[in-house]
């Protein structure tokens, strides 16, 4: 790609991204912050599905663990934000490794059901362990992220925190995909038998990816807690896990940046359609069905295919 064209391809979206929160309403910026949070959590789900063929309905648990660890350590104990986030990631990855090791021996529907069970168990425990999570009353008073006295306390400010983090994580996953282990993941997705013959430890790789996905879910949960400053069990039910899976499928699981488009779709579009009145839920559902039928590889896959088709052979 010529330098000028490369600069335009990267520069224009960057300019739009930087200018958007200054021209959009506060409400839209708030939705864009959520899109950033969902991108991070959804990236983990999309990577698992696209590269390992694992349907995960457990991401809400790790999202919740991240949020509750942040709430507990930062609101109750008064510790700094990185402590809460690190504790969440440590606990999530430990649980993902412990649970993932046995359940990732399963495959297909059985594995999806096992992750759903984990999601449901998490939801029940978040509710029942109210001495820890506050139950339905939740935990409030979570401090904002405020490094060096600069508080990320408005949607506009948080927008410029969450999206660079999301971008960094997308780049890291892009790197992973184009490395030795990324190749191994794609290989085992195409033919597990041939991958085994080449000495690839499929189970170990799957567990590593499940752990990585849990870390992303937890990080997103910690950021969420700092953003809304209040967490309750409603935010970490199984329907949240379904949203993460939905955005992954819609965005396209075979491209690293697909979850960005999927997250924007499920956060911004319903709000934008709400101006249509009562019918908006039906319109959104129709758009959802149309997207899944017409774009089987998601938005990301469709754009990639279009880009490849128009590129000179």
């Amino acid at each position, binding site marked *: 790609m010529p330098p000028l064209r490369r600069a335009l391809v990267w520069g224009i979206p960057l300019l739009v991204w930087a200018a958007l929160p200054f021209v959009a309403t506060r409400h839209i910026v708030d939705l864009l912050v959520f899109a950033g949070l969902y991108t991070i959590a959804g990236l983990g789900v999309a990577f698992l599905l696209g590269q390992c063929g694992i349907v995960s309905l457990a991401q809400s648990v790790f999202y919740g663990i991240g949020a509750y660890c942040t709430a507990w350590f930062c609101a109750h104990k008064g510790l700094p934000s990185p402590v809460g986030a690190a504790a969440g990631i440590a606990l999530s990855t430990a649980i993902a490794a412990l649970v993932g090791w046995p359940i990732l021996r399963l495959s297909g529907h059985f594995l999806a059901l096992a992750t759903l069970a984990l999601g449901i168990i998490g939801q029940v425990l978040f509710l029942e362990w109210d001495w820890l999570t506050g139950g339905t009353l939740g935990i409030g008073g979570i401090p904002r992220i405020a490094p060096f006295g600069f508080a990320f306390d408005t949607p506009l400010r948080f927008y410029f925190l969450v999206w660079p983090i999301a971008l960094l994580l997308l780049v*890291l996953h892009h790197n992973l995909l184009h490395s030795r*282990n990324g190749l191994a993941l794609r290989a085992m997705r195409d033919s597990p038998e041939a991958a085994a013959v*080449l*000495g690839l430890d499929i189970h170990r790789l799957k567990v590593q990816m499940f752990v990585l996905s849990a870390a992303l879910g937890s990080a997103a949960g910690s950021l969420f807690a700092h953003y809304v400053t209040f967490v309750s069990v409603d935010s970490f039910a199984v329907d949240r896990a379904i949203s993460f899976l939905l955005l992954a499928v819609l965005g396209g699981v075979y491209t690293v940046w697909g979850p960005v488009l999927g997250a924007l779709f499920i956060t911004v579009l319903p709000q934008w359609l709400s101006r249509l009145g009562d019918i908006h839920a039906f319109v959104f559902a129709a758009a959802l069905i149309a997207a899944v039928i017409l774009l089987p590889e998601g938005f990301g896959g469709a754009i990639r295919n279009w880009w490849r088709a128009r590129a000179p052979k």
Partner: protein
Amino acid sequence: MTMGTETVSPLLQIAQVSHSFGGLHVLRGVDFGVPAGSLTGLIGPNGAGKSTLFNIISGFLAPQRGTVRFDGRDITRDTVQTRSRAGLVRTFQTPKVFGKLSVRENLMIGCYRHLASGVVGNMLRSSRSRGEMELMHARATEAGERFGLSEVMERPAGQVPAGMQRLVELARGYVTRPRLLMLDEPSSGLNTTEIGQLRELLQRLNREGITILLVSHDMQLVDVASRVHVLCFGSIIASGAMVQIKQDERVRQAYLGV
């Protein structure tokens, strides 16, 4: 006819291997060895148990009785991956290429077991991670040239012709630097010219020190083997050079049909 540097020590030793599916005895106390450095053939009519034996040797199936030893070590209960890391690599009767990966990536992944970078290093593009990718790239290029795949290196492996997919699988096995390369019907789907080229390729690989175990129906190809075992109804009925095998009365009746 003999190719390679055959020695007496068996790299692979199958001892008293038996297996049945339900009431059907597929293998009945099979014994045979593959000497290090040899190019050994395994032939037999359809239903003789060749595929079952191949799956047992490569670890896809555990035998009900008997042992498989590789380089003197009992590997009967080892996983496919463990056997692969020891240098035992196989191909499949229907080529199993990684269809969505390019031919180059298929060959690159052959280097996997010799490298060690971790997930975190890969994400951060550590110098080790980058170095490994360069190495994999270089080895894939070399293997591509060697196996005549240079023209299709960047194409998805699932989209190249079937005969070429077989070569991709073989080249990928070669990149792993195997000690024993097990080939399951490598000539099926190839025309006479391609089979001739495959013969030469196998001879060359064998001369370079790769021990090869070849399962094939194809007499034109099996001729390349220095020693051939004939499997019939789950038992080895003859072993020896192809010239001897062709004259064995039992083999002529059971398999060659002459």
